[in-house]
């Protein structure tokens, strides 16, 4: 027999302590959210590596109430001929369900810009990814501090 009762108890306590630390830091659920967010982005980009530039994501630095957070995206594009934005994906990395919205633009849009309001469960990064009609992708990321989360109500 390898373990004495004392050793077994000590190990169990160490494991519990570890689990508690993870939960308090929010590491467990948060990283799961980031992984899901990354998967959603990869699906949207078709696996292409996003470049920076062209897309601008505008969000407040700090919000008091996460239940209605203004978010604007704008992509510099002529929106005619070959220079067109097809879609923009907005993702809140650490929400219980990260995707926020997918915006679809056409040649009648005139400008690839839109604003809406989203829910943020906690302080986190918000990511916007633009996919052009030629398949190239651009990404912008902004950090938002939330003092009261918004997904429960």
């Amino acid at each position, binding site marked *: 027999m390898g373990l004495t009762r004392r050793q077994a108890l000590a190990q169990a306590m160490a494991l519990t302590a570890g689990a508690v630390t993870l939960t308090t830091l929010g590491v467990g659920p948060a990283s799961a959210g980031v992984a899901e967010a990354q998967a959603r982005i990869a699906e949207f980009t078709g696996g292409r590596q996003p470049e920076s530039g062209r897309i601008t994501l505008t969000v407040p630095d700090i919000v008091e109430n996460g*239940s*209605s*957070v203004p978010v*604007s995206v704008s992509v510099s594009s002529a*929106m005619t001929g070959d220079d067109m934005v097809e879609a923009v994906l907005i993702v*809140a990395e650490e*929400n*219980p*369900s*990260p*995707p*926020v*919205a*997918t*915006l*679809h*633009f*056409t*040649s*009648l*849009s*005139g*400008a690839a*810009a*839109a*604003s*809406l*309001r*989203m*829910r*943020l469960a906690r302080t986190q990064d918000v990511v916007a990814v633009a996919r052009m009609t030629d398949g190239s992708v651009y990404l912008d990321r902004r950090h938002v501090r939330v003092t009261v989360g*918004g*997904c*429960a*109500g």
Partner: protein
Amino acid sequence: MATPKPRVKVPEQANAGEVITIRTLINHDMESGQRISADGSPVPRRIINRFVCEFNGQTVFACDLEPAVAANPYFEFNARVAESGTFRFTWIDDDGSVYSSEQRIEVH
């Protein structure tokens, strides 16, 4: 929940080829499906999952909404207008309901 009533703001007139700004709002709880009710059971998800704006039958702007869109979804976006016509706005609810609104614009 009160019956969703769309509200849209489109300029009454514009110059041909001008890029105009459109704003829309609809009252809707956007129940995320994440909440737990008082008796401990989850509140079922019910959101508006799609919004479309068309001009004379052609799509101008569309959005797929997820539960992380705030209650009473608001949109601000642009449209390039070449001729007079009618904007049609459509919101699609998880329960299959469709809410819509129309607005005419005169282009000079």
